[in-house]
């Protein structure tokens, strides 16, 4: 074979591999959406789930997922931002820094069911938080931290060093340079990181079964008092999320329409996660243009 032919063969082979990946993804997405979409209706999205009869919806599960997401981000974002700034701007190249990095790596590879059981023993039982959104949010923070830290650190790292020098040479303190110049420049990347990690949180089930619980008490969306037990804002109430709901309906659902509820919920979950992903790109691109191209 001539080098030219080898090259063409290699290109074809690589294209073939990519094609397989794309086909797997399209098949999965297509199957879930096509079998789920017919079951999604306004009624399905806005009515509470029913335990025994057909016709239940996913209103509370959907809200729980979103609420859990917000709460998790509120806990994990400040922690991740601080750690990422430290790793990217302050940490020296020594054993302590590599210890932190190893810790983050390990954290990101923990199986979610182990984190769930750990959260169950520590938060639910030991700290008496019970099956609650708060327990779930803390457990999810464990997953979210490594992802967020890495993406924020990556976006800070991508800011050219000349910007740091510009700030320092103009008489800005280290912190002013970080706050006034580096963070605004890294913002599009940070936002993308947040949204992508949000997708991960949204789809998590195993860690939540043991921490946020599997029951969805009827919520009162008019009660804005977060300490009331029926209030939708109460972070101490048990909360079945959409992903957990799918798992539960499939394993122990007794409603006659369990299959269609599961298919519909899966489609809703996938669609929302896809929206997160596209949203991340759109927002990232738009902010990047705004920063560099003028108003």
């Amino acid at each position, binding site marked *: 074979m001539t080098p030219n032919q080898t090259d063409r063969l290699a290109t074809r082979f690589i294209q073939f591999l990519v094609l397989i990946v794309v086909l797997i993804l399209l098949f999965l997405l297509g199957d879930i959406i096509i079998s789920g979409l017919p079951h999604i209706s306004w009624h399905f999205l806005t009515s509470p789930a029913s335990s025994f009869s057909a016709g239940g919806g996913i209103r509370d599960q959907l809200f729980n997922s979103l609420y859990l997401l917000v709460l998790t981000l509120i806990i994990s974002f400040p922690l991740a931002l601080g750690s990422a700034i430290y790793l990217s701007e302050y940490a020296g190249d020594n054993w302590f820094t590599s210890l932190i990095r190893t810790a983050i790596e390990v954290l990101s590879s923990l199986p979610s069911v182990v984190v769930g059981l750990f959260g169950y023993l520590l938060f639910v039982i030991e700290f008496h938080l019970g099956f609650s959104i708060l327990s779930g949010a803390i457990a999810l923070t464990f997953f979210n931290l490594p992802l967020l830290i890495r993406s924020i650190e990556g976006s800070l790292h991508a800011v050219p060093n000349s910007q740091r020098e*510009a700030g320092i040479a103009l008489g800005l303190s280290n912190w002013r340079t970080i706050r006034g110049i580096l963070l605004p420049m890294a913002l599009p990347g940070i936002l993308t990181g947040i949204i992508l990690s949000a997708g991960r949180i949204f789809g998590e089930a195993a860690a939540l079964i043991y921490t946020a619980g599997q029951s969805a008490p009827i919520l009162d969306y008019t009660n804005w008092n977060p300490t009331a037990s029926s209030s939708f804002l109460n972070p101490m109430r048990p909360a079945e999320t959409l992903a957990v709901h799918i798992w539960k309906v499939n394993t122990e659902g007794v409603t006659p329409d369990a299959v269609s509820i599961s298919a519909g919920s899966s489609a809703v979950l996938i669609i929302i996660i896809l929206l997160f992903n596209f949203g991340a790109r759109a927002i990232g691109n738009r902010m990047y243009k705004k920063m560099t191209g003028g108003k």
Partner: protein
Amino acid sequence: MPAILQTKNVHLSYGSKEALHGINLDFDDHSITALIGPSGCGKSTFLRCLNRMNDLIANTTITGSFQFHGQDLYAPTTNLVELRKQIGMVFQQPNPFPFSVYENVTYGLKLAGHHERKFLDEQVERALKQAAVWDEVKDNLNKSAMSFSGGQQQRICIARLLAVQPDIILLDEPTSALDPISSAQIEETLITLKKDYCIIIVTHNLQQASRIADRTAFMLNGNLVEYDLTSKMFTQPAKQDTSDYLNGKFG
């Protein structure tokens, strides 16, 4: 007239490797001094000692005396933030902040506590005019500084520096990333600025040094070989190394 900045016996080491082996240089106010020499001779390293940018690099040891207005630059009591306002720096790559031109130029002033709109407007105009870029950006002050050409960006960076009214301007190969026309504009700008400032410029471009510098220092392998009036050094260099370098025999 005493020199505004005097350095004596400057040694600098990265770890165990010494990069500067005892440099003595004095810089006059209202003049341009060029530092020339082949790559790796230590001219940028020396320049970065003058506003203590080398402090940012770990394992750097600097000894010697740096007298600025009769004060020791490296005294433990030196306020770095103040120092870098008095001794500003322009870099090889234009590095405007990713904000509007107006924000860029007023950044240092706002930091110093100036927020009166009228004062800021005046300073922006003065600094941009001094940097000879006012006519090109005056209608687009709210546009991102990054959307301008490289030469314009570099002059915006100079304006950003001038806004805080430093005493000394350090330039580290400010035109090496620019086209000849932009370079010529920057050179003109520097010649006008020398009335009010002490300018120290590192350059690879010998013609540039001969065009704009009053005095030139030639460095080689971490040593200062020769320091004299530019007109004298370029016509009658005292050392053989200087002559060889100027005639393109090495470097």
